[in-house]
Every structure is written in C-alpha cells, then in structure tokens.
C-alpha cells in the first residue's frame, strides 16, 4: 500500500514520515532483540565454549559437538524422540480426525455442541494440572491400577512411570484418548469448510463413507494435515515439560528426550556450553524439517 505523502514544505516533517513505521515496530523489536535474538546468538556462540553459566568460559571449538557422539544419554534421548515423534503423528492424524468426522455427522445440533464442549473443555485446564493428574493416574495407588484391579487384571498392576519397561509407553499414552486438543478443532473447522455441494454430487453416485473419507475428505484436508504434522513434529522436539514432571527422564534414561537432557545439563550439571551445543543441533534439525515441509510437501490447491 502506498502511503499518501503529505505535501508539506517542511523538511523535518518528511523525515518524520520516513521513520514513522520504524517507531511503530520499535517496541516489538526492542523486546525481541533483547530477549530472543540476543539470546539465540549468545547461545550459539557459547556452544563453542566450555561454560558453567558464570565466569568460567573457555573456548573449545567443536569439542562440545564431538562430545555429543559419545554421549549415551543423548543417543538414547534421540531414539526416544524418534519414537515420540512417530507416535505423536499417529495420535494426531487418527483419533482427532475420526472424532471430527463423527461429530460432523451428528444430526442433532445440541448433541454435536455437547460433544464439542466435551472435547474442548479439557484444553482449558492448565497443562500442569493435567500432567499432575496423570502422574497420579499412573501412580501405583492411582486410577489406572485401580481399574485394572477391578476388572481382574491385577497382574498388570505396576508402577507405570517407575518401571523401565512401561515408562516410555506411559509417557506416550499420557492424556488418552488424545482428542482434547486443537487438532480436533482444526479438523472440525476444515471439514466444515468443505462445501456441501461436493458431498451431494458424490453421494448421488453412491459411495461408502470410507471412500468418502479417503478420496475426498483427506485430500481436501491436506493443508490441515501439513500444518498439524509440522507443528506436532516441532512440538515433539521441543516439549519436555510433561516428561520433566512425570518421570524426569527416568528410570535411567528410558524416557529421556533431548530437550530434557539439555535442561538437566544446564541447570543440574551447569554444563551450559554443552547444553547450548545440544540446543543448536536441535534448532538446526527443526529448521531443516520446516524447510523440507515448506519446499516439498505442497498442498494441492483446492478449487477455492
């Protein structure tokens, strides 16, 4: 948009007009610069140092990065991350989509609204509360074991988060049935945007719901899929809050993820140069994934 220049004879006025937009973005970039941009550069620079967060700071070049290869915990954390990313994607593209489809087909508006509320309300609860709740559910004396005992499956009773065999599964299973989330809302709004005309024309020809799902809905939801997969992957790379509170990476390193490893290195071991190196590597990975997504996974353009 071309800004209409005021015709003034005053030279000062036009200088002000030129710097005006910068004044508007100044507060934002002042904050961003101080806290985000400076911090990012700082962290990347420090990744080449051995640094304890305080005065001890020795330049050691690539040693932090080389050390990563022999860091067993890091290796385990990357494997866990891979598992978590794959299961997260599966969780996101299946159940929320199916539930959105079902809710779309519900004829009664009141019932549909009730279901929508049921799936949305849990999102209002602070995430820390949900985490603590599930920590109790998985507890030896918690809800899950209680249910198992009641239906006669006592032999499965265990400390779900404390048992090395089940800990990772428990972390993945957290917040079952995985519907309450924006994924459901996004699929729902995507489905609602599909013009009825499309359904009418194919239903005349007689197709099964499954065919409709695979040949029409999913292709038309490609944009939503792309967005959700990308954000799910990036979030999976970054989130460690729930793991921190559920298991803190344990037992051993069975539920360790890179982000938590970094956090521990920083705040428990004060190995901050190394932590910065870990963080830089993860940053490069997520940037790369986003780049791939932008370049190669194209949305087929719908007839909009």
């Amino acid at each position, binding site marked *: *948009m071309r*800004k209409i220049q*005021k015709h003034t004879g005053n030279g000062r006025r036009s200088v002000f007009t030129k710097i*005006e*937009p*910068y004044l*508007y*973005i100044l*507060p*934002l970039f002042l*904050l*961003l610069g*101080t*806290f*985000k*941009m400076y*911090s*990012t550069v700082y962290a990347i620079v*420090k990744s080449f140092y051995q640094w304890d967060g305080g005065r001890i700071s020795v330049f050691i070049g690539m040693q932090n990065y080389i050390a990563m290869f022999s860091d067993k915990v890091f290796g385990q954390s990357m494997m866990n991350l891979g598992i978590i990313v794959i299961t997260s994607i599966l969780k996101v593209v299946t159940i929320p989509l199916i539930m959105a489809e*079902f809710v779309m*087909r519900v004829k009664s508006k009141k*019932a549909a609204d009730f*279901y929508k509320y*049921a799936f949305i*309300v*849990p*999102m*209002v*609860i*602070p*995430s*820390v*509360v949900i985490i*603590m*709740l*599930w920590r*109790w*559910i998985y507890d030896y004396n*918690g*809800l899950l074991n*209680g249910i198992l005992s009641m239906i006669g499956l006592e032999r499965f009773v265990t400390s779900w988060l404390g048992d090395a065999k089940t800990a990772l599964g428990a972390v993945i299973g957290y917040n079952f*049935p995985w*519907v309450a989330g*924006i994924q459901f*809302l*996004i699929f729902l709004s995507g489905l609602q945007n599909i013009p009825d005309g499309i359904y009418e024309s194919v239903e005349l020809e007689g197709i099964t*719901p499954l065919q409709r799902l695979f040949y029409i809905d999913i292709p038309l939801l490609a944009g*939503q899929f792309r*967005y959700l997969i990308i954000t799910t992957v990036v979030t999976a790379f*970054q989130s460690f809050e729930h793991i*921190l509170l559920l298991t803190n990476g344990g037992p051993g390193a069975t539920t360790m993820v890179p*982000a938590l490893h970094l*956090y521990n290195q*920083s705040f428990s071991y004060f190995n*901050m140069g190394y932590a*910065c190196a870990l*963080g830089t590597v*993860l*940053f490069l990975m*997520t940037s790369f994934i986003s780049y791939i997504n932008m370049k190669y996974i194209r949305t087929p353009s719908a007839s909009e």
Partner: protein
Amino acid sequence: MKLKSARIMMHAVIILVAFLTIYPLFILVASSFKTNIQIYENIFGLSFPLHFEHYVIAYKQIYSGLVNSVIVTCGNIVLTLIISSMAGYAFACFRFPGKNMLFFSMMMMMMVPYFLILTPQFIVSQRLGLLNTYLVQILPPSSAFAILSTFLITTHMESLPRSLFEMASIEGAGSFTTFTRIAIPLSKPILVVVTITNTISSWNNYIWPLVAANSREVRPVVLAITKITASAHQMPGVNFAGYVLSSIPLMIVFIFATKPFVEGMTAGAVKA
C-alpha cells in the same frame, strides 16, 4: 449415513471417547473432596462425606500464586496487545525499507527452540536485575507471544479496505490518529482472539517462571500448586483441590468468551 445401526454405533463411540476424556477430570474433582482412605476405598467416584476443608487448605497456600498469575497475565496481555498492534499496523499499512526482512526475522524467532535460549535469557534477565519479579514473567514471555500476535494482526489489518486509510489521510489525520481511530476499532475481533491466546499461554507458562521467578512472593499459581503440603491423610485430596482452584480462572474466561476462546486456540492454524 444410511444404516440406523451404523449411526447408533457412531454415537456410542463418540460418547465413549467423550466419557474417557472427561472422566479423569471428574475423578480429579471427586478426589479433591476425599481423604487418603476414601480414595483407597473407592477410587472411581464420589465418597461422602465431602471434605470441603481441602479447598480451604489449598486456597490458603495458593492464594498468592493466583494473584500473581492474574497480575502477570494482565501485564502480558496489555504489553503484547500494545506492541503487536503497533507492529501489525506498521507491517500492514506502511511500506518501508527492510520491512520484509524484519518480518521474516520476527517469524524466524518462532523456530528457535525454547530451551536453547532459556539459559541466555536467564542471564540477560539476571543482568537486568529482573529475577524473581513480576517483570521477568512479563517482558520475555511477551516478546514470544508478540510474534504470533503481530502476525495475526498484520494479516487482519492487511485485509482492511485501503480506502478508509486514504480517506483519513486526506482529512489530515496523522498515522497515529489513523491507528487509534480506524485500524484498532476495526480490528477488535482479532484483538480479542490475541488476548485470549495470550491469556492461555501466560497462565500456563511453567518452565520460565520455574527458572526465573520461583520465589514465594511472585511465583505463579502453576508453580504454587506443585508445592502444596498437607497432612498425610489429606493428600492427595488437598493437592487436587489446588489443581481445581488453579483451573477456575481460565474456566471463567472460557465460559464468558467461548467463541473467541476457541478461535484463539486455533489461531494461526488456518493461515498457515
């Protein structure tokens, strides 16, 4: 769907999944009224008598956390609204050198993993003397919230009719007047969405306050609820009461502003 039985099955599945989703929350509330022994005896439902005193005990311990969260969230909302609406206005309505590069660099900041900058941000905050204050829970998080908010506002303002701005300019309105009298009032819907999104994010913020503002005076409620103590037979009931109490403010916002709440949660997704 043609078959009646298929339709019934579909409803059954939805109801089952909805039940599974809500049941843990019901147990949370139900258990908040129970003593240790009551939970042991009946883990699945309500037990009588209801121990309302759990809520009193929990409230006393998290009261300051609630106040802190409210103060911090309000601060975040106000600050983010101001800086992102100003920046959005500039990006949407001006042409200036470096505009695209600045916008792009802002969006790039969204890619940076939170934990990478956690330590440096902590050090910057320490040097600025901000640790364990309200400001440290407002300034850095707002800079993060403002990115998405600016993006949303920019997109919205770009869709406003140019003729309005041109008319204002002809009438002699300066850019600031145009900003306050035209751009902002016409952006109310998106500003509401931005407010709600930031309310949720700010209230939920856990790791940063844990690292930078964990002192008893300023810690937000999400930290306070992890530190509730009570006698053995009152745990975990009192804990659960604390969790419920900390959820109430967001619930209230949700009930009064459901539509923007839902829009806020999906914000950014449709545009991506």
